[in-house]
Structures are given as structure tokens and as C-alpha cells.
């Protein structure tokens, strides 16, 4: 590892996110509006998705690392450039990704995968199939539980919006949007958010199972 990288890691290790720094970060991400932390959650999710699309296995950790660096920069130097919070986060995320990529290449681990490599053998074994069936059963059980936690309208949206073949979906979505008195775009955004919550619930449930 180079001297520069040593110093980078040392600095990173020295600084921890304090309560004050977190509050400053939340306020900065909110701008003028108080979102009760929703802006932070949304930004973390976008960053995590970004790293996921870059084939980083530790996408959540890298999202946290990005936000920690932004918070540190806010505390130590303030951010006076004319960038919006979202754009600044993106710029930092790019550096975090490039750094992660260099570290992965220098110290190959399982934290980054090449997009050209198929993750699984083409022909699954019987054991794989049995495990997949068990996983599917767990997912179904958890999905049932998590769906029951949704209110009736959200449950209706999730089952009508996402279920069905490609052609059926188009009709379902149009009819659902009409029945709710909203545009299809607005419905899409709402359905996406419900799905995100539902998926997180199923993930927690399956992890605990």
C-alpha cells in the first residue's frame, strides 16, 4: 500500500460521525425544508443503488462511507462550493468508488465482482435447486406477513401494479391510476416506494427466519 493510501486510511479511521456532525449533515441535505431525515434515507438509498450498479458487493458500506466523508467535510471545512447536496454527494461517491476499485484491484477480495463473470454455474445442482425452493418458500411466507402489514390501499396498489405479464400490467396500471384519480407517473412513484418498503420488510423477515 502506498504512503498516500496509508494516510488516507489513517484519516478515515481517525474521524467518526458524531451526533452533531450527523445533525449538520441532515440539515444540509434537507436544505430549507425539514424532512425528518427522509432526505438522508433517500440519499443513502440512491448511493447504495449507485454502488450496487457498479457491482460493489458492499454497496451499503460504501454509501455510508460516502455520507461520512461528506459529513466530515461539512464539519471540518464547510461546503462552500455552488454544488447542490445531491451533486456533491455524487462527486464524493465517485471518488469513493474509484478508491474502492483501486483497493479491490490491489487486494483482490470478494467485495467487487466483474460484470462479465456469471455469478452462478449455468446448470444448478440438485442441492442448489432444493435450497432455492426453500428460499422461495421463506420469501413467500415473509411476503405474506409483510403484505398484511400494509394498509388495504397500498396492498391493492402493490398487487395490481406489479403482478401480471407485461401486457396485463399496462392495462392494470392504467385502470388503477384512473380509479385512484392520479397519473400513471404518480402511481409509479408511489408503487416504487411501497415496493421498497415491502422488499425491506421481506429482507428483514427472511434474514431473521
Amino acid at each position, binding site marked *: 500500500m502506498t504512503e498516500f493510501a496509508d494516510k488516507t486510511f489513517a484519516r478515515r479511521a481517525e474521524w467518526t460521525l458524531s451526533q452533531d456532525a450527523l445533525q449538520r449533515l441532515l440539515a444540509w441535505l434537507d436544505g430549507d425544508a425539514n424532512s425528518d431525515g427522509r432526505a438522508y434515507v433517500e*440519499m443513502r438509498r*440512491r*448511493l447504495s*443503488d*449507485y454502488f*450496487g*450498479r*457498479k457491482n*460493489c*458487493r458492499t*454497496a451499503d458500506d460504501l454509501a455510508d462511507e460516502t455520507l461520512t466523508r461528506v459529513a466530515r467535510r461539512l464539519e471540518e471545512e464547510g461546503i462552500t462550493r455552488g454544488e*447542490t447536496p*445531491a*451533486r456533491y*454527494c*455524487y462527486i464524493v*461517491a465517485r471518488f469513493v468508488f474509484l478508491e474502492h476499485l483501486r483497493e479491490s484491484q490491489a487486494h483482490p477480495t470478494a467485495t467487487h*465482482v*466483474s*460484470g*462479465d*463473470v*456469471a*455469478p*452462478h454455474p449455468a446448470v444448478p445442482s440438485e442441492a442448489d435447486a432444493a435450497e432455492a425452493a426453500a*428460499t*422461495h*418458500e421463506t*420469501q*413467500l*411466507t*415473509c*411476503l*405474506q406477513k409483510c*403484505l*398484511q402489514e400494509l394498509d*388495504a*390501499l397500498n*396492498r*391493492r396498489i*402493490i*398487487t*395490481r401494479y*406489479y*403482478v*401480471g*405479464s*407485461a401486457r396485463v*400490467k399496462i392495462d*392494470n396500471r392504467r385502470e388503477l391510476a384512473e*380509479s385512484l384519480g392520479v397519473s400513471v407517473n404518480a402511481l*409509479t*412513484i408511489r*408503487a*416504487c416506494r411501497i*415496493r*421498497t418498503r415491502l*422488499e425491506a420488510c*421481506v*429482507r428483514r423477515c427472511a434474514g431473521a427466519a
Partner: protein
Amino acid sequence: MTTETPSVETIRDYLLGQLPESESERLDELSITDDECAERIRAVEHDLVDAFARGELHGVALDQFRSRYLTTPRRRQATRFAQALQSLDENAGSGGSSEAGRGPATLVGKTRRWRELLAVAAAVILAIASVWLVLDNRRLRERVTNTELQRDRQLREAEARRAADTVPPPTGREPSPLTIATLVLTPQLRSARQLPTVALAAGTGSLAVQLELEPVNYPAYEASLVASNGDRIVWRSDRLIARTVGDRQRIDLGLPATVLSPQEYLIRVSGVPARGASEIAGEYRFIVVR
């Protein structure tokens, strides 16, 4: 910053790693800085994963999804979730606004009960299928329009006539070697759990199979029959040409009964393009019983 919201196709290419680097970086940035674009990417990603879960991705798109998208545990987890979500379709019925209050409370229970009843249902289906096949063989045989089958049948009939001239007449109880069973297979859904079953009576000469193709278009096709017992290819077709029936395309196969035994089979259809290697165009599973 003024941005033009990318199209669904562009976002799909982005998610499948098919965009040039500069364009991919632009979408990287928009996915974080632009609210509308971030939502749109999320929506397209959900639809893409759902399409995979439903078996609606084919050819290049499927290959790209497997090799370029399913590369992280999180994405594989999202795919498992999508598969569970799509199970609502087959378990909860066609749905409707009345579902809102009802919900999927009985989803897993239904699944389990369904499996418990599977054995009984299979027996009933086999009995019905056997009767149906016996009654319908003659009518369906007349409907087989594939020229290859017709020629095959004519040859067999000619051979039978020649044989009848040289050997004593059958007792009447022995099955005719000309008997043809018929099976019509539609594209297999990933979520499909109940396989079509065909009962072959003793003496059945061949199994005529009509395969309804996915909406793909190749100048020619090839088919191979894979036995589940040992996962081996037991029969291959010659080059096949699809025929149009309504708005779908079909190909017809004549499987010799001699290669069929009581077990599960997979017919793998490959499209043969004008240039290049053949590509898998569909898979059809069925069960043979005697």
C-alpha cells in the same frame, strides 16, 4: 441543470451494462442528482427484475441480465423477492379491486394445500387425459397439418398395407402400430408448476407434438428431446420450419414412441438464424406415463 429524462430502453441498457461509458456516467449522476430520473430508474429496474422472474426475458436480454445484472447478492435477493411477488399472480388469481380488503392472507396456505392435492389431481388428470387421448386421437390425427408428419404417416400406412399383404391379420386386440398420440405444448412459464402429461398406450407409434412458439422469428428451428433421467438428449429433429396459426407460430414434431419412457422430458427448441449460431428459443416440459 437541465436534463432530458432517459427513455425506458436507455435505462434498461444502463442497468444491463450496455451503454457507452460516457452515457453510463451521465445516468450514474442523474440517478443521484435528479429526483425524476432516480425514480424512473428504480421503476424500470423493478420491471426488469419482474420480467426475469416471470420468464419474459429471452435471448440476448436474458444473457445480459444473468451475466451483467445478477452479479451481487443484493440483486439476487431482489430477484428472489420479485419471484415471490410474481407468485401472487398464480396464487391469488387474476385480481381486482376487491382484492384490497381480502389481501393475500391465504397465499402460502394455498400453495401448501395445492401441493398436497397435487398427487390426487395428477391421478385425476392422468385418467382424464387417457380417456381424452383415446377418444381424440383419431380426430387430432386428422388435424395434423405438418407435411413432415403427413409424409411420415403416409409412409407408415404404406408400410402397414404392405405388411398386411404378407402377414396374417391382427386379432383385433393388438394395438395398431399406426397409433399416434398428440400433445400441444405452449411456452412454459417460469412459475408453471403443473406439467402437461401424456399417456402413451401400448403400441403407440409416435407422439405428435405441436409447440406453440414464443414471439420470436427465426427462419428455421431445431429441437432436441432431453430425458430427465440422466439429463441426456435422446432425440434430435431435422431442420424445422414454423407455420403460422392465428397470431402465433407453431412447429410440429413427431417423436418416435421408442425413445419415450415414463418420466419427465424437456423439449429444447433452438432458433437457427440466417447467420451465426443457433440460440435457445424455448423450452417445453412434459411428462410421459404409460
